[in-house]
């Protein structure tokens, strides 16, 4: 029973949702919409489970003063602090003068943006290391990257001889080979989605339903 119920449910819900596309009738959509909303709510609830897990893993570390326990404490305190000011702020939490808004503007935003900005540095080192003309494939990769990089800056247009044609050629690469490759990946992903979707719905794929 433990494995039968989820499998039967998977089959019924899956088939029902596939029908969403093929059956336009409003009486049908009335119910698919309800199911989708339940999905939304469930996804949200899982978040609380994650929160529970996090505390479960980190609190003992702090209690037993394991390695880096001070940092874990900082994390838990920031977490609780954010929750407290967030719930206290309620619907006004994002108005000026709210502690929650302050945390967002001056802690969350710079941290998030700076983590992202590290990429400017990493992309330089990755390009330096990886873009060597070792074989034909690597050379194509390298040449395409350089052409696009030069063409994307205004200076590229000022180059003698090729400058004029460079942006057009870049657009060609982006519009023709790039689109061919991307469409192939899109189509491949769609095929993967169909096969995997059917495997899930037909109960062949059960990895997400655990052991026994």
């Amino acid at each position, binding site marked *: 029973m433990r494995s039968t119920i989820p499998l039967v449910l998977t089959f019924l819900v899956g088939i029902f949702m596939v029908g969403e596309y093929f059956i*336009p009738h409003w009486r049908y959509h009335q119910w698919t919409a309800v199911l989708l909303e339940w999905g939304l709510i469930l996804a949200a609830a899982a978040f609380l489970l994650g*929160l529970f897990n996090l505390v479960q893993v980190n609190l003992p570390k702090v209690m037993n003063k394991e390695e880096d326990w001070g940092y874990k404490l900082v994390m838990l305190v920031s977490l609780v602090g954010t929750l407290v000011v967030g719930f206290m702020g309620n619907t006004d939490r994002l108005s000026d003068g709210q502690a929650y808004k302050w945390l967002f503007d001056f802690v969350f935003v710079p941290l998030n943006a700076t983590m992202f900005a590290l990429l400017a540095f990493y992309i330089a080192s*990755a390009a330096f290391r*990886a873009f060597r003309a070792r074989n034909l494939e690597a050379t194509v990769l390298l040449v395409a990257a350089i052409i696009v990089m030069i063409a994307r800056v205004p200076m590229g247009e000022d180059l003698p001889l090729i400058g004029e044609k460079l942006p057009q050629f870049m657009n060609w690469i982006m519009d023709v080979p790039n689109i061919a490759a991307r469409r192939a990946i899109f189509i491949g992903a769609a095929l993967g989605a*169909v096969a*995997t979707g059917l*495997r899930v719905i037909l109960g062949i794929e059960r990895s997400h339903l655990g052991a026994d």
Partner: protein
Amino acid sequence: MKQLLSWMALLALLVALPASAATVTVEVPPDNDGLNLNVVWDEATDPLGWAVLRADGASGEDWTVLKMLPGNARKLSDKVTTNVWEHPPQDTYRYQVVAMRSLVLVDEMEEADRTAAVLAAGTASAIATGSPSAAWIRTGIGAKQYGPLVMLLIILAVGVMMWKFANDVRAGKPVFIRRIPGIDAIEEGIGRATEMGQPILYVPGIDELQDIQTIASMLILGQVAEKVAEYQADIIVSCCIPMVREVADEVVKAGFYQAGFPDAYNPRNTRFISSEQFAFCAGTNGIIYREKPATNIYLGRFFAESLILAETGFVNKSIQIAGTAEATQLPFFIAACDYTLIGEELFAVGAYMSRDPRLVSSLKASDWVKLFVVISLLLGTVLTTLGFPIVNNLFAISGG
């Protein structure tokens, strides 16, 4: 301000030209859900604006103003109800269209006063009646765009082929699957980590469990965990989505169980880091730097964090294997990782590693659809060039 507007409205009333009544027809869109009616009308000259009015029921006189439209509009696609629970659609609706002679600011009026105000400031058309009609199946035949039908056939064909090929395998017919170097690298990486006495880091992307790539990644994780347990190594799973962590927990537990070492599994190593992309990235960087995994496996749907993770792993001298169908991130994985599985290869890993006949059969089934797509592309090009866009119609999908 408000006073100024009403003065302007009065002024408009004085200078506006008299507009004639329009002829209105109500159409039911093809393959419709039964909640939409297209109101179409005809008029040679543009008035100042249009107001579309509707009364519910065959003889209802309770007119409401649906929408004010600019003078060049000739069509309104009306959704007759938004709350089917409390107001299910009626059998019949009556419409009239008012050519506005002057400006009426209906937004500022009470609901009840609007109809009268609109009718007073314009010329109303004759009343047109329409009945919504709901289709039970979407085929696209009406619009001669057979996409939905072909989609249904593809889904059914894949299902039937999966069943047939799985039977073939069970009957002892071998299925060939081409070797993919990235997958061998996963096994080598596990061996290397065991030799070095360091853990393996597995990142199943940062998307929800429901994403097809995440599901594929979970299946692979099961295989990886089994190998890890056999080698008696450690595996850390770093998750961005709580639901994914729960499933990963189950999957890894099952993998250790399958390998015969159920007690070796440490649930503390399957971690929820943060659902925020870059916080997750910072936390996973921390794991790479501080717990020094020998092998990093990134399989699933990744976004901008891909390069940060892969570069940090490079500095840590880990063997790195990545795989994603997210086209934007593939260049970075290719630049920074030792092996990269591109697009569909990700979906093949599970079948390849598992050797489960049912999974292998689904790979073969998609290959047949792929062949169908390639042939359609080539044949379609020839036929379209010759002036027969038959294949295009097979793949075309009209707006529903």
